[in-house]
């Protein structure tokens, strides 16, 4: 398969740009094999990206709907009922069942479909072969399967929105017994069966993808590309894949046990239950907490699965656009490694108030706060990378800087939450919502945007419109802080998360009064994202054409391919690598690409 791709470069657009690869000619490639069941990692990356974007719109729209309820609980929006029907919006009010269905689906979709598949699916696929100098993935076929399992997971999730009792509504963490008992919550009926099916398909997709990424990075690097010459993007994507491969199976086992409890009368998670309207259930001896251990054993690594690719891309983009080497390359790799290890050792910090043994809790406090050390190293290394640089504010660079700002803000509140005595007070309040939206949600989104702005020219041979990019950046960072910063205060006022309405709570209604403001900003920020989407799709077709192979004057290998590389990436030989990826500003030279041999008089660093 790969050799075939090498021999026959058959990218259509490659021809009208008249790049250097004229010598190969057409070959029976149908629409289906090129755009649908493609085995070209670049096409699969685009499939992941665009599917992720569709899910981002769906998930974003859901948040607009439930923010409408939170922000304007007393107002009626008759058009909502016209649009969505009575189940969702009776008399123009989002119903509680709809609210919880929306919150749950929003969380699931954004965490798994957008920030896992959409982020590492896109960039691992796109960048790994291009940056390590490979023709394609180790197994292009598995890679294709990975996308289609993801697609199927999406189809099932989408179906769940339309079933009789609505989609699953017990929160993205799906704790049983709530998630196990259809009688306890209508959302735990068919909706939950579909949720579990969808998640299982998704996990298969992640595993297929992850194994492939690992195999590719380990085995298919071009000549001279030792591990320590890898760009940090690849290191990050590599660790991400390792995290996924080791932790997703645990979630799968958790889901399988849940399926058993739901459908086959087992009692893994169930014990001593009396459900209103049903009576006492037969189950005895199970542990509801067991699921939480299984879930968070994936769940915590999962948050780093989401974050690491963003960290990797940001490291690369900061260095390229500061025209300066990344500071402390080995420390950056080392801290990624430390984070990857620690990610497996802190899961119970989500469970401090479940009745966990206090001594065990204290061990998790220690390990959790330990993560702040590699995080701090990364932040200071990024700052030092900017120091005395020569910064070009491309839109990608803006988002990378924004990422660092958000990572600092959200990482610092992690130190509050990781300290169990404080977490007792803050757990399951809006403080947690603020923490993870800033550090994971928005920060990783920024990493993703940075990646899109930076590699769009490589993906489509066109530029995105810069001005729209700047507007997108400024509106989003200002908006994100305006939405999530005040939420810390709501959390400190004790406001619990996952509340449909606060008006009956003497303790919270005062702090809830700023919700109208937050909701309004959320809607504006959502619209700004539409502007970005417009820019994206418009530019694919009508964007300014890229006329130089290396528009950002970058060192990494992807910029040595033709402007529109075909399947196989390099028309001729794969370039050999002679140096690391960060020789910017060395010996007075602007930049020295990785495939340039060492000069005689070149200084050692």
């Amino acid at each position: 398969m790969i050799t075939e791709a090498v021999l026959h470069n058959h990218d259509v657009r490659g021809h009208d740009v008249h790049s250097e690869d004229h010598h190969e000619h057409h070959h029976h490639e149908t629409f289906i094999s090129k755009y649908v069941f493609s085995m070209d990692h670049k096409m699969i990356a685009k499939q992941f990206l665009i599917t992720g974007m569709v899910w981002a719109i769906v998930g974003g729209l859901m948040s607009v709907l439930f923010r409408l309820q939170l922000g304007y609980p007393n107002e009626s929006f008759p058009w909502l009922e016209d649009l969505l029907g009575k189940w969702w919006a009776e008399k123009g009010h989002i119903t509680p069942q709809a609210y919880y269905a929306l919150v749950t689906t929003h969380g699931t979709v954004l965490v798994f479909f957008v920030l896992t598949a959409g982020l590492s699916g896109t960039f691992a696929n796109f960048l790994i072969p291009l940056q390590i100098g490979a023709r394609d993935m180790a197994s292009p076929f598995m890679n294709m399967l990975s996308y289609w399992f993801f697609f199927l997971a999406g189809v099932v999730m989408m179906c769940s929105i339309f079933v009789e009792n609505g989609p699953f509504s017990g929160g993205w963490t799906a704790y049983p017994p709530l998630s196990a008992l259809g009688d306890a919550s209508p959302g735990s009926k068919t909706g939950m069966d579909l949720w579990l099916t969808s998640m299982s398909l998704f996990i298969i997709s992640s595993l297929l993808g992850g194994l492939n990424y690992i195999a590719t990075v380990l085995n298919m690097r071009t000549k001279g590309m030792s591990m320590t010459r890898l760009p940090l993007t690849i290191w990050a994507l590599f660790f991400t894949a390792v995290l996924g491969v080791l932790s997703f199976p645990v979630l799968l086992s958790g889901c399988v046990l849940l399926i058993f409890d739901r459908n086959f009368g087992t009692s893994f998670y169930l014990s001593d239950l009396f459900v209103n309207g049903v009576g006492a259930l037969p189950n005895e001896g199970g542990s509801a907490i067991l699921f939480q251990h299984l879930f968070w054993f994936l769940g915590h690594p999962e948050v780093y699965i989401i974050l690491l690719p963003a960290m990797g891309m940001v490291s690369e983009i900061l260095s390229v656009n500061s025209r300066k080497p990344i500071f402390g390359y080995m420390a950056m790799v080392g801290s990624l490694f430390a984070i990857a290890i620690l990610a497996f050792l802190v899961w119970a910090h989500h469970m401090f108030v479940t009745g966990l043994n206090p001594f065990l809790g204290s061990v998790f406090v220690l390990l959790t706060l330990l993560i702040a050390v590699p995080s701090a190293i990364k932040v200071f290394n990024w700052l030092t990378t900017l120091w005395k640089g020569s910064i070009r504010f491309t839109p990608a660079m803006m988002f990378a800087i924004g990422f660092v700002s958000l990572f600092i803000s959200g990482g610092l509140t992690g130190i509050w939450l990781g300290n169990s005595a404080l977490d007792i007070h803050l757990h399951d309040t809006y403080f947690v919502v603020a923490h993870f939206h800033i550090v994971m949600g928005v920060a990783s989104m920024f990493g993703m945007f940075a990646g899109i702005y930076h590699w769009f020219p490589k993906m489509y041979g066109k530029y995105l419109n810069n001005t729209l990019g700047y507007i997108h950046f400024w509106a989003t960072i200002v908006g994100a802080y305006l939405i999530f910063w005040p939420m810390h205060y709501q959390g400190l006022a004790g406001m619990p998360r996952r509340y449909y309405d606060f008006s009956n709570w003497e303790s919270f209604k005062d702090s809830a009064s700023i919700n109208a403001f937050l909701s309004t900003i959320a809607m504006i920020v959502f619209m700004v994202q539409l502007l970005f989407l417009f820019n994206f799709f418009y530019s694919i077709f009508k964007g300014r054409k890229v006329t130089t192979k290396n528009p950002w004057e970058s060192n990494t290998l992807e910029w040595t391919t033709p402007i529109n590389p075909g399947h196989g990436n390099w028309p001729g030989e794969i370039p050999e690598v002679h140096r690391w990826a960060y020789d910017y500003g060395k010996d007075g030279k602007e930049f020295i690409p990785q495939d340039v041999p060492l000069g005689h008089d070149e200084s050692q660093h």
Partner: protein
Amino acid sequence: MGATDYIMQMFLVLAVIALIFLVIFQISKASEYVGVLKGAKESRKQTNKVNGFLMLAFMVIGLFGVWYCNKILAPKTQMFNGGPASEQGLKVDSMLMTTLAITGVVFVFTQVLLFWFAFKYQEKEGKKVYFFAHSTKLELLWTVVPAIFLTVLVVIGLRNWFSFTSEAPANALQVEITGKQFGWIFRYAGKDGEFGKKYYRMIDAADNSLGLIWKDTIVNRSNGEPQQLKDDKYTHDDIVVEQTMYAIKGRPVKLIINSRDVIHDVGLTHFRMKMDAVPGMPTTLWFTPIYTTNEMKERTNNPNFQYEISCDQMCGNGHYSMKGVVEVVTQAEYDVWAAKQKPKYLSVFPPAEAPKTDTTKAGIAKN
């Protein structure tokens, strides 16, 4: 407002949004053409200047925003609106302030550096970058310094953690609290000071919401085997109440937490305490209230103030309405309240009938 007005209004809003989009798009397109005419370098120079300036502006306005947000929202937080209402809460708040101070300094320091560097080191003609790839000294510095501060925080934190999760003092008032969709049931041990046994198969939503074993009964286990439950006399004087529990100012109160159906969470934000209610696995927490409800009304300047128990774990569609109340009173007031409470047993089995019901399984009761 009529339906057509409504639709017109919707269209108007959409039209305005579309128009704004169009204008933004046209401007962006035009500036792209200008950029092409000027050449890549020249236009980069200009956007660098603008964005570099905006980075600085964002930092200054952002820090001002942080200050302003704090000014208007901090008074609404638990720390400043009445303050902590338990001894434990005092420690939590002081730890919170220490953490805020440390992370706050780091926050300002790093954010200022970030945006200042972005502004200061924007590309300028003829300026060379400083090829600076690595420095062990610096890297050690920012490994060790954060580690030291984190150690301080861990020490404070674990001391509090172990104190909060320690055994409740012997004189603690014991209250059992059980979550169910969507409310709370409280039980006091009654005169004998002992909670009677309960079993979930005994639950009867109307009369025996907790499943107290207050008569001999045979229940069927899931494997079909009958199981004999023996009347537990300790249940007979247990007090069962819903909605509001009473606690005493200055006396530790220990909650024994259960759930009847799904996982709930006893959230006591004023006391800075919280613990999940897990079916099949009792949990506990304890704290010492330091203000009565009435005192808190004054402290918060809110005549409607209540110590609300919020369910803090997603438990179904009524989660947001799952409220309980802790009424903190003085010992004297508590005694008056307690004297008025009747054991649940007596209301379900009024004394005249009690013996009859009791003998249903007399044979078992005797052995």
